[in-house]
């Protein structure tokens, strides 16, 4: 696959702008055009922000906290980088961006090659077409997971995978939200999903057993299991396991499977690396970010990757190379960093953060960071 992302220097990452929200944030995602940021958190609203003007629409389509999102863009979708300076706002949005239910003939007509899918903690999943003047709902469905924790879109734009509190993995049609298949081998909540770049497999990580399951998409069969016990995090005093496979990624060369989380109560966040061929764990990268957990992991085509972490009232970004146990760099952000997304231009990062007094968050920000050319 040809590299589409420019050479950047992650060690010189800097904050460009910050967008403020009324709720503590837990997720953020840039749409495939690079213009719209979808942010969600401790609110039933989802916030759609025009990254150029900073204008935000606060929408009520979701029924609970939006904690997960994914995107798919056709190859011919043009990507726009955020403007360094705020631009004039776009025309007002149509009377309603919202529409519930499955895809209709009308919504199929509006379908574009740029889609964002957002999921909330009571199981609602919404697909948004984003290449128009404002994002519009393509379809909105109830996934039945109870709590929906993770969503991913396949590279060919055909399938959406969801996982959640019921331990099931479900596949849906991105076109119309109809159910395709159910994968049922996890015995505990599913917290992470990734379509393998080969287009034939899906990877799902759980919280409880700390396993990653490899599924064959064509048959729905589980073909392999990765043991991520180093992400187990048992606290004896209350018998609660704080661990779990929080996010999964593949290195760009396809050699390594990565996952993140943390491995002990009040210990730092970490990343595990597995050899894709053998399935064996080959490296553990441990941060020095005290009392933290890495919730997200974003792979850059330059070969490095970024993790976003939540610590005690703090948040940090960590930059890594797969072959080095030590970090490339780290950066403090303005609050606990629950959400992370690599802008499709490869030069910017968006970080969903919480803010507020002492240990209780009561507002949120999305930080727009730039990784300058170099490297």
């Amino acid at each position, binding site marked *: 696959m040809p590299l589409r992302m420019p050479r950047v220097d992650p060690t010189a990452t800097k904050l460009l702008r910050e967008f403020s929200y009324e709720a*503590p944030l837990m997720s953020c995602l840039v749409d495939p055009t690079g213009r719209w940021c979808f942010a969600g958190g401790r609110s039933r609203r989802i916030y759609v922000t025009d990254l150029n003007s900073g204008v935000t629409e606060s929408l009520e389509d979701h029924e609970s906290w939006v904690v997960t999102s994914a995107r798919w863009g056709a190859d011919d979708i043009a990507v726009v980088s955020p403007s360094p300076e705020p631009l004039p706002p776009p025309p007002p949005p149509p009377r309603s961006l919202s529409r519930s239910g499955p895809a209709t003939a009308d919504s199929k007509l509006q379908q574009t090659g740029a889609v964002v899918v957002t999921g909330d903690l009571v199981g609602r999943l919404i697909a948004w077409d984003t290449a128009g003047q404002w994002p519009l709902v393509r379809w909105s469905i109830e996934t039945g997971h109870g*709590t929906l924790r993770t969503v991913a879109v396949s590279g060919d734009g055909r399938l959406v995978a969801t996982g959640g*509190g019921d331990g099931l993995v479900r596949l849906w049609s991105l076109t119309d939200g109809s159910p395709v298949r159910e994968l049922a081998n996890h015995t505990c909540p599913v917290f992470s999903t990734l379509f393998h770049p080969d287009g034939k497999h899906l990877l799902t990580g759980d919280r409880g057993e700390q396993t990653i399951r490899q599924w064959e998409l064509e048959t729905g069969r589980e073909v392999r299991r990765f043991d991520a016990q180093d992400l187990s995090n048992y606290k004896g005093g*209350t018998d609660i396991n*704080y661990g779990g496979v929080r996010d999964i990624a593949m290195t760009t060369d396809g050699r390594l499977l990565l996952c993140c989380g943390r491995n002990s109560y009040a210990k730092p966040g970490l990343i595990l690396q597995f050899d894709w061929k053998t399935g064996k764990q080959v490296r553990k990268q441990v941060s020095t970010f005290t009392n933290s957990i890495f919730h997200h992991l974003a792979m850059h085509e330059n070969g490095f990757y970024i993790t976003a972490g939540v610590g005690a009232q703090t948040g940090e970004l960590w930059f890594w190379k797969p072959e080095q146990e030590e970090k490339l760099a780290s950066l403090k952000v303005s609050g606990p960093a629950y959400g992370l997304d690599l802008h499709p231009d490869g030069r910017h990062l968006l970080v969903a953060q919480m803010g507020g007094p002492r240990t*209780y968050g009561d507002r949120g920000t999305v930080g727009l960071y730039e990784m300058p050319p170099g490297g």
Partner: protein
Amino acid sequence: MSVKPQTGPKRSTRDRLTRRHLLQGTLGAALGATALGTVGQAAAKPANPRSPRKLLLLFLSGGASQLETFDPKPDSKYGGPFRTISTALPGIRIGELLPHTATVIDRLAVIRSVNTGETSHFRGHYLLQSGRKVPGYPVIGSAVARLLEGPADELPGYVSMRRHHPQAYTDVGDAGFLGPKYEGVKIIDGKPPANIVRPESIDARTASTRERIRRLSDTRFLKDRVPRAIRSYAESYQKAEALMRRRDIFDLERESAADRQRYGEHHFGRNCLLARRLLESGVHCVKVTHHDWDAHFENFHWQRQRCLEFDRTFVTLLDDFRDRGLLEETLIVIVGEMGRTPRINYYGGRDHWGDAWSMAFAGCGIAPGVVLGKTNALGTEVVEGAVDAGDLFHTILAALKLDPKATYNVGGRENPVADPAAKRIAEVLV
């Protein structure tokens, strides 16, 4: 020691709290400390007529979130991610994590206005079970074992079930000044007390001889010593031994596979099923601890996991007790040591909160379909019908037809069974 109805002046509210009552409360602890040496030597003649009623305490250890269970605030900024659902009571909604409980809420009495102000696990466990802040009093299980004690009792009056690890604060407080005879027999991981059964390699005659020698040794040892420790050991041993004579109770395989599955194949489910068998067999009070509600971290993940276990098991138990006629004679209390903060911390957790939280009753003596008390819009304060741990203790006794105003005679001094400064909650009682 004896128990007799209180004959002093009636003081039913905290507003009437007098210096004498305060002294009584404080004295209780002192009595507890000094009475231990005499407990058991005094005549044991219960003044309460024998009640056939039983108590099942479902203790949500760690502190369940009232906002995710019985007192949701969906429109509050502290409301959390979950929705509310309608219940069998028109106009009453509870958290969506309790769908089964919602269908039987017309058989419960729910209190949404518990205000103990207590945010320590250790003190909370003691407070919610003893109805007192002053240490040294018996917890409700021990009190019930004492107050319902009868000459035909074969099994221990109080059995407490929990998981082996962690113990944490689950064993805080017990019989207090009532002494070891009324301590709860601990059932760990659903297993009968260990090392009681005669090994196969020892024949019955040898075992009998060994037991006779053990008793003789105890008697001789007691002659010149303060007997408390020895008596404690002997009484604990006897209670465990009595339970072991009925170890068939612990054999859940005697229940149908369908029933075991309905109750749930997890600790809580198995312990609830065992609790039913123990209560049916004559135990007066069983406490089942449901662990791990202490969700300082990712509360919404953990409350969901806990509710998944609790919800179905509880309703199965409630139906089973009703179908067997047990509910008419059993009081079921659902309570923890505290609630959880309305505010949500950075880790997605709710912390300890004692000022406004919820609990529920079902079964004998309880007025079904009552939802008592109200908290403010954020859920931070009780605005109507505040009750505290002492009131809950009175209410449990009243539902069991036991006199909350009775006194224990401990070392020649009268000590109130329930805190005289508290009162029963009349609205939830029939």
